[in-house]
């Protein structure tokens, strides 16, 4: 095949694409796109794929995952916020959907999107972060850690996935609940943040349990406490901050499905029904099991309540962090 013919084929395919769009048919009459605003291999992507596969079965219509990445998720979220509210473009968002608009406000910039541009369909999973320190560090319990941090404000350091990122917000919520001050060293993602604590360049890290479990088992890291409402199943002996009396230190890395606001109610109802059936699929359960991510299905008012409470905590967290250079 010559290069010319290849080009011709590509052009022909590109032209044929928009023909699919027709209205007034029972939903779904054409493929649905689920936008994961983060690259393949991240939490959003790894959650979106089994969800899409299970929904495909229930809806009997193709559901494709598209990674639209950039600017810590803002590019993909903005894309869905401004796309046609017809139920064919959905968003699989993480907690950062509540953080990004708040951060935009702090910098007085035109927000890329606002939370009101979305309607929640369902919460898929919610993974509480846990606090880990290196095994050779002096702190055996969360209490010792917090006491020491009180004695030496700004001396104990932690790495995070980036400023205003999920791992940063978790630590900030703890700092405010416990009245301590820690030293923040942002990294470019959760992977580098983990590398930093394993290499001994920082003292502590808030992380999703699945990522740090192998290092806890091999004796390199020690878990002190969790941010969840309940204890983490794989670490039953590790208390929650709630149990320790810091009730505001509640944080989850959650994943939920959203549609653009204005999506017709019958379509939303169909999607809610489909996600409810999808999370019950055995394939979906086993996929989430392998990722060691607990399924936390919530929808309707229940999800809205969870979402609102979470967004309020995060917004307050972002405001308390404020602009970094304004401090000191």
């Amino acid at each position: 095949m010559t290069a010319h013919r290849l080009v011709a084929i590509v052009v022909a395919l590109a032209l044929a694409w928009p023909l699919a769009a027709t209205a007034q048919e029972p939903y779904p009459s054409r493929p649905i796109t689920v936008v994961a605003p983060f690259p393949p291999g991240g939490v959003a992507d790894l959650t979106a794929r089994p969800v899409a596969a299970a929904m495909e079965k229930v809806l009997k219509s193709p559901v494709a995952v598209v990674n639209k990445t950039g600017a810590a998720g803002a590019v993909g979220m903005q894309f869905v916020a401004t796309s046609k509210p017809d139920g064919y473009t959905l968003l699989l968002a993480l907690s950062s959907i509540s953080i990004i608009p708040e951060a935009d406000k702090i910098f007085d910039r035109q927000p890329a999107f606002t939370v009101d541009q979305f309607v929640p369909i369902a919460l898929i999973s919610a993974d509480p972060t846990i606090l880990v320190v290196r095994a050779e560090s002096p702190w055996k319990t969360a209490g010792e850690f917090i006491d020491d941090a009180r004695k030496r404000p700004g001396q104990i350091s932690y790495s995070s996935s980036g400023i205003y990122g999920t791992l940063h917000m978790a630590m900030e919520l703890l700092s405010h609940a416990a009245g301590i001050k820690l030293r923040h060293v942002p990294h470019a993602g959760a992977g580098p943040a983990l590398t930093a604590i394993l290499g001994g360049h920082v003292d502590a890290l808030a992380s999703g349990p699945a990522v740090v479990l192998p290092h806890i088992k091999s004796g390199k890291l020690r878990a002190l406490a969790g941010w969840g409402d309940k204890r983490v199943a794989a670490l039953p002996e590790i208390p929650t901050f709630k149990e320790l009396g810091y009730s505001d230190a509640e944080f989850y890395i959650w994943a939920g499905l959203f549609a653009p606001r204005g999506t017709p109610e019958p379509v939303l109802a169909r999607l809610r029904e489909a996600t409810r059936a999808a999370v019950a699929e055995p394939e979906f359960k086993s996929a989430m099991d392998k990722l060691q991510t607990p399924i936390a299905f919530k929808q309707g008012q229940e999800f809205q309540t969870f979402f609102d409470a979470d967004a309020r905590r995060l917004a307050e967290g972002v405001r308390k962090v404020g602009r970094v250079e304004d401090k000191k």
Partner: protein
Amino acid sequence: MLETLGNLGLGFSVALAPPILFYAFVGCVVGTLVGVLPGVGPLAGISLLLPATFGLDATRAIVMLAGIYYGAMYGGSTTSILMRIPGEAASVMTCIDGYAMARKGRGGAALAIAAVGSYVAGTASVVGLMLLAPPLAAFALRFGPPEYLALLLLGLFVLAYMSSGSMLKSLAMASLGLLLGMVGIDQMSGYFRFAYGLVELGDGLGVVPVAVGLFGVAEILTTAGQATPPHVVRPRLRELLPSRSEWRESAAPIGRGTVLGFLIGILPGSAHIIASFVSYAVEKRLSKRPEQFGQGAVAGLAGPESANNSATSGAMVPMLALGVPSGPIPAVMLAAMMVHGVSPGPLLIQQQPELFWGFVASMYVGNVVLLILNLPLVGVFVNILRVPYPYLYPTILVFSMLGVYGVNGSVVDVWIMLVMGMLGWVLRKLDFETAPVVLGLVLAPMIELSLRQSLAMSDGHYGIFVYRPIAAVLLGAGLLLVLLNLISFARRGLDWRARLALAEKGEETS
């Protein structure tokens, strides 16, 4: 040692089983294609194909993804040599001397040297991975932000010391690159810098669109601007293979490139492009005829091509030994393992010996597959040079745009590529080298982040760079280099670089 051999035997029994062999082969083929397509690099290739591996078992999936990874490094050299378009970011250095060789009718030889160099580097670095993974990974973890900053600065000094032509021009280009690298979200404060309201610029200018623009598009524009099309040296069939002297010239650079690439690849967060830049600089410094660099020096092709291949194995050391990602590609591969219920981490080698050793053995096999695949393809690929420019160049332009668009599905990236193409055209007219721009663009965010992380760690005290032994040694070496440079500069008004520039000028006017 005996134990390692036994384990390797286990590994080969896994890797040579037909299904695994098949997926290794598929990975290598796909990787070569991904590398050949301009703009689509290994990260994009692996990311796009990750979902396709969800249905496979863990070993097959990992073997296939690894095949794509190192296959792309092989394939990336093809378009760089034949068309001066970096197939992926790490091939930027290959563009310079590889393309110059192709212009002189040695395109076949260049492709063959790139393939053999990649093979040697790939295989030798797997030996390194196999024997040294755990201790090396532990050492690599000691590289925190201060060490990393010291290493990057040392790298910059080495490059400035070794750049060709006018030092002023090289530094100007590197500064331009560093400035371009400032675009995007400030990692430490969350500010959007120079984004002009475009959310897409939040992640900064991508290396791929900039590299394809500065090299490929600029080349096309330059050629199109000439009154008579440049004479194409048609490759003759019997000249496809490198001559004996070309083999001799490439042997030592391949060896050095392999070691350098592996060591740089191990360090968390480093990019393969740095390995190839450093290798190029080292070869130029060691060469008896540095004036040939840029004009088709065999060493300038063999070193960087080997370095970017052995860097892939190096990058897998922390991933396999410790379960920590040393860059975006290993991060995707770690995710693939988790999808399959394998928990990557320090216990992987003990708990899943079949997976680890099968993976290592499959890399030996994969490198052989790639060599067998790539050498005969040399004869096919060089025929591209027979296509007349009026047909070839528009086609390349279309493929470059498709490739750059395809990676992120972003039109902004296509615009970046086109603007950079114009900029590259102007710079070439004015006799500026564009490689330092790409290097600056890559290094700027890394240098900035590691400097500010270091200062965050030390609460603003610069002493952190002196108290930490590795950082202190690296910075000391960098300062020594600057001093040497200044001394030689003061002694002779004209150092070798200036003489070289004069020699190059003489050649161009003749």
